[in-house]
């Protein structure tokens, strides 16, 4: 019985943190965001060197073959650094979908390339979570029609993995005929999402996802877990910055952190955030170790981190006073990343319904 990270996990997280510290500090994040990029070649190159893209992919497909806990630790670290590095879709959701629903040929074609980071895949599942009228993708005879909204990590992707209205996944090449990609600008300039529209666009179905919802649901779970972990890291970064600022900033001849009001804001953030770490660990651990609990725990991690993340983002900004409202300290990069994570793949109200479903407390299914 040991509910703690093991030395290898700690070392993994530290090495990712060190790489981001040296190559992806806030100044670099600003440069990348200002250039309207969401991937920087040199940063991604180093991520590849660290084998980040292959973290979840089995060794026989050229990956590292680690688990969701390790992936969540990386997501947390990326969030801590507000790193503009594709990960959730291409390195976690896409491999999950391929492993659960792909043919041997598809696995052999894609997994090694994803693992090496040579190619990236964007993932579109929004319409399976919260479909807007007029959107969604339909499949017929190997062709796709319709529009997928909020396709994750889309602008830098070589190809797309899109869920159709029946929940089956399709691989679509980036240059496929009839495909149009339209960038969606969000508050979070460290991530990329797009609208992908298709007009009789040829696509290749993942055969295991036809008539079987499990690949879709496992992929959504995987994505939600990563967004929860990302918020954990981003909120921790904001808390740390708020505490540091409260020690250093002086008003009325004393550090503002010596005022009970500011001190308690910091304590409340810490008290709310710290248990989230254990929740993310448990949810990630359960995917392989206690699969019957995984969906429930992931839903709770995503929904609860959305709430705690928003509280920390706001409170840490308040502790910084006017300085938190400016661009000077760049605090808003974290604020916005937390805001992005809150909504993507489902906001908290919606996901709490999924948590109720996962334990049989709500019968209907969404959509």
């Amino acid at each position: 019985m040991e509910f703690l990270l093991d030395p290898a996990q700690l070392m993994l997280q530290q090495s990712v943190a060190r790489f981001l510290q040296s190559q992806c500090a806030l100044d670099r994040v600003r440069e990348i965001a200002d250039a309207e990029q969401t991937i920087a070649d040199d940063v991604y190159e180093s991520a590849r060197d660290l084998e980040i893209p292959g973290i979840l992919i089995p060794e026989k497909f050229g990956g590292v073959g680690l688990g969701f806990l390790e992936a969540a630790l990386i997501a947390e670290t990326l969030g801590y650094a507000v790193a503009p590095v594709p990960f959730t879709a291409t390195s976690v959701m896409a491999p999950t979908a391929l492993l659960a629903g792909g043919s041997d040929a598809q696995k052999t074609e894609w997994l090694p390339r994803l693992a090496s980071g040579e190619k990236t895949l964007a993932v579109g599942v929004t319409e399976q979570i919260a479909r807007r009228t007029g959107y969604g993708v339909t499949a017929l005879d190997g062709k796709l029609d319709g529009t997928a909204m909020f396709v994750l990590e889309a602008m830098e992707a070589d190809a797309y993995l899109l869920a159709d209205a029946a929940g089956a996944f399709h691989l679509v090449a980036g240059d496929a005929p009839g495909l149009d990609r339209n960038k969606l600008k969000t508050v979070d300039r460290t991530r990329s999402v797009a609208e992908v529209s298709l007009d009789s666009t040829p696509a290749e179905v993942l055969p295991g996802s036809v008539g079987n919802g499990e690949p879709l649901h496992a992929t959504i779970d995987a994505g939600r877990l990563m967004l929860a972990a990302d918020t954990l890291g981003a909120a921790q970064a904001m808390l740390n910055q708020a505490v540091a600022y409260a020690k250093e900033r002086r008003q009325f001849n004393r550090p503002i952190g010596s005022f009970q009001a500011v001190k308690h804001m910091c304590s409340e953030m810490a008290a709310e955030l710290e248990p989230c770490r254990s929740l993310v660990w448990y949810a990630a651990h359960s995917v392989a170790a206690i699969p019957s609990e995984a969906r429930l725990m992931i839903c709770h991690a995503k929904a609860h981190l959305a709430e705690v993340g928003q509280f920390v983002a706001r409170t840490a900004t308040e502790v910084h006073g006017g300085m938190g409202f400016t661009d000077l300290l760049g605090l808003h990069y974290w604020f916005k990343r937390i805001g992005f994570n809150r909504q993507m793949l489902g906001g908290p109200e919606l996901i709490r319904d999924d948590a109720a479903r996962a334990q049989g407390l709500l019968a209907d299914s969404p959509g």
Partner: protein
Amino acid sequence: MDLAYSDEYEAYRVEVRSFLEENKDRAPAVGEHRTRSAREWQQLLIERGYAACIVPRRYGGAGLQPDILRSRILAEEFACARVPAGDSGDDRIVPVLLELGTEEQRQFFVGPSVRGEISWCQGYSEPGSGSDLASLQTRAHVDGDDFVVNGSKIWTSGAKTAEWMFCLVRTEPDEPKHQGISYLLISMDSPGIEVRPLKQMTGDSQFNEVFFTDCRVPITSIVGKRGEGWFVANATLKHERGGLGDPDEAEKRFGYVLDLMKEETINGQRIIDIPSYRDRAMALQGRILSMKFNGMRCLSHDIKGEDPGLARWIVKLQGCELNHQVAGLAIDVMGELGVLYDDSPHLRDRGLWQHRFMMDLGLIIGGGTAQIQKNLIGERVLGLPKEPKFEQPI
């Protein structure tokens, strides 16, 4: 308890409404300032007694008696007709000049201010002096007939366009901090002033930093005496306080969110029909209405010349928070669409909810943080004791 307006005021409302109907074509566009048509419009409004109402005629105003209900009717009718209201120069500085300025200062500044020929910016906050404003370090010493100003100000909106700044500077460094400050009027054309825009989290730059390097200001530019600046400034802060957290604004914004919830669907269901969102909206509506009626109560006290007390003190704290929550609800009900920003495709309501979510957080912080507001309510309204003085800096 009578929510109707008396005949006199209903008549005034009719008069304003017909004026607007006749003249609205002459009004400048919303946001249009300092153009000839804007100045002519302002002049017309002053003549009719619809702008600069209580500024005496000899200083360029309409010279009327204060009448809160008429002011409110004016504001309502102009807003309803979507016509820019007239202004009174600048509510932060014109009342101060009228009350505490010299005759020369009134003559020189008030007329051009109310006619819209000059505009003002405020130089109070400093990088090191936010909540503890009285610790400000921008200093001025006398050299001949001038103050020589050095230091910097922050959070100065309009510094790029304003001709003049009203500004707090430390002129008596040996006095206790509240007694060492003077209130100066500084021309923004003066040599030695540099204005740098301050980029904010929304991506805009509504505020600036202003740097003074040996900036010379005539000693006649002081309002009040040397060392009295803190007390002069508090006269203006009093005027500003009502401005933040307007409850009618929150109600208006909430109405837009309800519209959004009726228009947008998720999985074929209108958002207003999703119970958890609807319940949140209803809880928020209850809060907003209570603040709206609280505002009516304050107004009623104001009309009678009474101090609304606690009911007024809570307006900024609660109002800014409610606006922030309205924006947060709008973002949440939009879900993924709620994070769109800038000029993204599919943007709803021109992206204003994300913008407001951040701006309203800025307002919670700005103009006295929520923490400072709570200190003031506790000490000045509830009569709780202040923190004790402490022995030495830590």
